[in-house]
């Protein structure tokens, strides 16, 4: 019998190997700066700056320094706890608001749901920089400048349209009969959503939550404008390690690594959930 193991339909072996190599090359080129940043974080300042070395004696001195010495006014612990609160609460709020919105835009569509959907995305048309002055004035008048609350509110508003759009498309994939079956089985609206719809869209929910976390965690502009003194977040803490007294590349790298870590962990956790959800075979 002919052995077709390893054969590629419609393509030669050489071609596919070349493509594979190219993919790896591109991936490595993209990954290299990140890799270099991580490497730099474990170097002495001299090894990182004046005479860059690939091989060196790793040290955690830079990590100790960025976490212990409050650079300027903002400390490491303070920035991280501000970020965790702003990102965590805003993401939860986004999901709590977006799930019912997505339900009423896909499973039981309200009248003119297309217009509603367009309205959601239209709120993203205005550049943030164009809205910052009124935002700042409102925040000042409400005495919310330099508080976590203002970032929680703004990050929720910022991510909500995206989350509604994403969840709507995931909800639309849920077979209509499943929702009808649960209705006939006596489930009320909450039961339909929690017992039937959410378990099926779990991978989509994880993906949506992950994106919200990433966008809120990396948000810089609003945080730096509204919370320059108190309530500052991690991206601002990272830039506070930029000094006018010279290039402290190793220190900055260490700070950047610490700032990246939570997002990477969140991505890893979400990915596990996504794969588990897909493996469940929920969506045909």
């Amino acid at each position, binding site marked *: 019998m002919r052995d077709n193991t390893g054969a590629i339909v419609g393509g030669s072996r050489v071609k596919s190997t070349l493509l594979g190599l190219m993919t790896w090359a591109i991936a490595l080129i993209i990954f290299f700066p990140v890799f270099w940043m991580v490497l730099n974080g474990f170097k002495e300042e001299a090894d990182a700056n004046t005479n860059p070395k690939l091989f060196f004696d790793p040290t955690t001195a830079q990590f100790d320094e960025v976490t212990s010495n409050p650079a300027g006014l903002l400390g490491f612990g303070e920035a991280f706890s501000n970020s965790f609160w702003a990102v965590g609460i805003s993401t939860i709020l986004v999901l709590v608001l977006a799930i019912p919105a997505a339900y009423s835009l896909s499973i039981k569509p309200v009248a003119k749901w297309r217009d509603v959907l367009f309205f959601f995305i239209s709120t993203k048309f205005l550049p943030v920089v164009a809205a910052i002055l009124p935002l700042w004035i409102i925040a000042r008048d409400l005495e919310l400048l330099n508080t976590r609350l203002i970032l929680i509110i703004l990050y929720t508003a910022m991510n909500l349209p995206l989350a509604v759009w994403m969840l709507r498309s995931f909800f639309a994939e849920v077979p209509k*009969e*499943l929702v009808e*079956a649960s209705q006939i*089985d006596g489930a009320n609206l909450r039961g339909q959503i929690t017992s039937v719809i959410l378990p099926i869209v779990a991978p989509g929910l994880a993906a949506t939550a992950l994106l919200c976390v990433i966008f809120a965690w990396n948000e810089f502009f609003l945080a730096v404008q509204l919370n320059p003194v108190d309530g500052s977040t991690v991206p601002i803490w990272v830039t506070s390690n930029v000094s006018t007294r010279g290039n402290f590349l190793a220190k900055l790298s260490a700070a950047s690594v610490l700032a990246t870590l939570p997002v990477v962990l969140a991505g890893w956790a979400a990915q596990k959930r996504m794969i588990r959800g897909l493996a*469940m075979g929920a969506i045909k």
Partner: protein
Amino acid sequence: MSEVRYEKATRIYPGTEVPAVNELDLDIADGEFLVLVGPSGCGKSTALRMLAGLEFIDHGSVYIGDRDVTLTPPQDRDIAMVFQNYALYPNMTVAANMGFALKQQGVPKEERAKQVKEAARILGLEEFLDRKPKNLSGGQRQRVAMGRAIVRHPQVFLMDEPLSNLDAKLRVQTRTELTDLQARLGVTTVYVTHDQVEAMTMGHRVAVLKDGVLQQVDKPRTLYSHPANLFVAGFIGSPAMNLVEVSRNGGPPSIGSLQVPVTPDVAHDLESTGGDLVVGVRPEHLTVGAEGLPGKVIVVEELGSEAYLHVQVDHQHEPIQLVVRAAGETEIDRDDTVHIAIDGPTHVFTPDGRRLGT
């Protein structure tokens, strides 16, 4: 268990003008197995979904027992439904799927487990209780869907083409099991199908719909022997009834040279009816023999126990085809000439579909 009543129930889908279900009047007795049948788009599924509460009832009302449920949401109607694609919850085990409705009713866990087990025993699903739907075969999924319906002892079972996703052999087997199960449980059942064999074999009574309008509701046998109109005559029966347009020139109706025998009440009606007619004869009421209308055999469908001959005959100077049932293992072949005679009841309709006589 309860009776079900539709009273001039009408559904008009938004953006359309023609009702999907038009003033449906239907009484379904307690414990009855009623089949809604008709071609696609006839409104049979819509009628079922109106009873389920999944479709808004624009005019008229629907009763379950003596309760007017016209505006009652599905979760409060105390019904169970089996969907065409079964609609099993993919994230739940078979046991959880079957127990879901009981859980919603707040039945305690032990009681739930007991009832699920009992339903699983009836359906032979005991060994699959811990599996997820995706690890079941089509037939098993169908059973789980049935189990989900029977476990809650609803007032009415609703079934929307529950067998159409099974292969032919399993469908016939499940058909029998379902009929038996319904008889044992004695729960009022409304069953939707496009398959008239399912309708005839399963239903205590069959309701035929066309374009949202109820054509006839009767026992299968009556539906077959006394179709109320031309549509029912053509729809019920497989192979279909031979329907021949006959233009009259005063005398009694005939197919080709073959005079069509009619009952006295049809003859009486004929006297007062002018114009053309449509004459219907079932294939088993035509015979081939030494005498009668000559015709050429076009196709022989040999089924073993019987054979169906498609015979081309001359009728009013036009060739038409008649289907004739013959005994199985027939000697007759394609291109043979046969003689057809009528031996049995005939049906006479006006061209607009009205039946003459009773």
